[in-house]
């Protein structure tokens, strides 16, 4: 009995010493390394992030995403969607809402949303809370050759946004695809819950302001063989929507029509 207990204590001691790593504060940060050459040509990671003014953890995710922009630059496209199914997407008091009815079908695809949550290229993995693990998913996406190489240009005359999109199939892709066009805007100041405090003029970036096409996009017959090309021109009347063109962007997505997975993504400033 005595031997068993001594042996067991020895085993636990060994496990305690061996199976536990401790990293000194000075060694906790390491350079992300790499460079643009390590990513697949034309690869862009599309991050669809669901947020809301009453979501206390959302600013934490915003800070992570801004840091990721420093690392990945234009290879990272973010669209912040104000949740319409989670009540944390509701505005404070009488402030204008950023909720768009069109996004309801996106949220229903992912199921009940706990904010904040983000998905890369409309994949299955949910990135939540502070989203510090988003970088790993972005790198994985950037190492993957996209099926569609996209470019987009947009101009605005104050009431209409004209969007020109060019797409090319990078490899054979037989399934039907769609083109989705979105308008986002940076530097929007409105009230946001941040932790346990309320920030009246919190600066919101990448906010989705309009879904130009149908929520799941419009049919986009690009063909199915490598090198096939297709151009698209779309005019969008802003109607009652007010945007500041110099703070706004157009995001173009080519997606698989059945799975909605993003096959190609591009973003441009509105001129």
């Amino acid at each position, binding site marked *: *009995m005595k031997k*068993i*207990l001594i042996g*067991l*204590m020895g*085993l*636990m001691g060994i*496990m*305690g010493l*061996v*199976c*536990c*790593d*401790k*990293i000194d*504060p000075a*060694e*906790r*940060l*390491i*350079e*992300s390394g790499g460079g643009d050459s390590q990513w697949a040509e034309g690869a862009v990671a599309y991050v669809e992030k669901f947020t809301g003014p*009453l*979501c*206390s*953890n959302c600013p*934490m995710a915003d*800070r*992570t995403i801004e*840091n*990721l922009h*420093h*690392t990945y630059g234009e290879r990272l496209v973010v669209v912040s969607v104000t949740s319409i*199914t989670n*009540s*944390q997407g*509701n*505005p*404070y*008091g009488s402030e204008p809402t950023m909720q768009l009815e069109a996004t*309801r079908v996106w949220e*229903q695809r992912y*199921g*009940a949303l*706990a904010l904040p949550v983000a998905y890369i290229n409309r994949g*299955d993995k949910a*990135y*939540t*809370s*502070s989203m*510090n*693990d*988003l*970088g*790993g998913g972005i*790198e994985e996406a950037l190492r993957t050759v996209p099926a569609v190489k996209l470019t987009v240009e947009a101009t605005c005359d104050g009431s209409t946004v004209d969007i020109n999109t060019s797409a090319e199939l990078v490899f054979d892709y037989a399934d039907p695809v769609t083109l989705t066009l979105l308008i986002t805007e940076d530097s929007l100041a409105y009230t946001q*819950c941040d932790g*346990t*405090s*309320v920030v009246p003029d919190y600066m919101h970036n990448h906010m989705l302001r309009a879904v130009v096409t149908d929520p799941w996009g419009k049919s986009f017959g690009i063909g199915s063989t490598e090198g096939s090309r297709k151009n698209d021109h779309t005019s969008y009347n802003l109607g009652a929507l007010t945007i500041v063109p110099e703070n706004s962007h157009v995001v173009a997505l080519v997606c698989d029509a059945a799975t909605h997975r993003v096959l190609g993504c591009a973003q441009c400033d509105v001129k």
Partner: protein
Amino acid sequence: MAAMMLAAAAQGQGILGGNVTGNVQMDAQMSRADSTIGATDVPEKLLMNARADILYTNGDFSAGLRFEAYQNPLLGFDSQWQGQGLAHYFVGYNSKLLSVTVGHFYEQFGSGLILRTYEDRYLGLDNALFGINVALRPVEGVTIKALAGKQRYYWELGDGLVRGVDAEANIVQLVPSLRESKLRAIVGAGFVSKYEDEELIGSETPGYRLKLPLNSGAASVRAELGWGGWSLQGEYARKGQDPTVMNGYTYKEGQVMTATLGYSQRGFSASVQGRRVENMSFKSMRTVAGQQLYINYLPAITRQHTYAFMTIYPYATNDMGEQGLQGDVMWKVKKDTWLGGKYGMDIHVNSAIVCGLDTTVIGGAGSDGYKVNGGMGPLLFGEATVELARKLSKEVKLTLVYSYQAFNPAVEGEPSDLFHNNIVVADVAWKMSKKHALRFEAEWMGSDSHRDVAAGHTDPRLGDWVMGLVEWNIGSKWFVSVSDQLAYNDGKGNYYNVSVGYTSGATRLQAGYGKQRRGMLCIGGVCREVPASNGLTFSLTTSF
């Protein structure tokens, strides 16, 4: 169904000479859009969670399997549950000296502070380990456990590898001279470690990522002492560096201490429990938030309530940091006394208070996160409940409950001040005849939460509430119940429900129609969000 038939055939024919038992449960739901409560349409029209457990035992040998189907998952269950298949299977051997299980298994070290794998079908939670679990009993009173495996993550296994060892000794059984004494003494200790591969986790410094500990461990020591009616239980656990999404990828070590002093005798029991938690979320995948893949479990330090309004604002364990105290007294007043009357009376008094830690933030990802100061943090949850249950006659039993609850909405991420709730319940059970019984329940909750309605909050729980329920039991087979919850004083909502049930032997069928308020469902301090719904529910359970 095939598994059921197979099991029934095996039992009926005595195949292999063993014993086959099992159970089947099916829960289905139909819900349609209702803008008044925020319910949305269900595109599939019908949602269903179903499962069948089969257990085969033959002497020291046992084997089991569980088939699960989520086609598609009920509202409130994560969409990652969608699918069907063999979710759980194991083979085990159990003798006096040795127990071995390979496959999926559930295990607990002590009170679970460093390891508890379990499943709760109502929470949509299953963190079973898939691997090998060995328990050795070299002498009477000593149990040594060792295990290794990966945890279930919906239909897959989590990436993290979990290893653990635990020893427990019953001192009274080990020392023959103590066996006749009133003393009870059990001591134990355990260690659990997880391994995860390197992955890219960003830091708050652009261009830098975190160097992660690949192995994170947690150890605990525990003791349980008793003398006559007195008992004292205590456990202390400490966790090494474990940066995860749960703690914002900070490197602070974690610890938890819990102690319970109790006394019980015939007709009376009392206990007081204290606990302090610091950064003790311990999961086998660092990037997974939510309730899946927990290696450890921190039991609730509040009473588990059953009455509806007492669970509207439930307590959820805050494993990132809290300190709490709970007292509980139960007294069975004898009959034919002034207080007990002709039939006696049960008195149950319970009070709990849970506060956060007094901390100072010292940094984000990559830092130690926060520093703990000496004081108390904000109140997270507090309650005091008095419950009196007394038979008024041979046929009628009355239960009266008063509860005061203070709830901090910040726990659920809502920026607001404390809610103060007063809840009163009257529950009358009337056995009308040998075949018929009625139960009436009336509840009222007054709350100052209505002030948040003016501030633009849309939580459907806000406001004051009143509820009535009538339940009619016909023999031991049928029951019908009707209930309605109504909000007022700036609250919104009228949630009515009708349900009918039929029980025959081990089989129970139930159907219901009504509205479900969006809120939180918590069991043992672990919670999941319940969305609003409006429609039919069906349930079937049976065992064999």
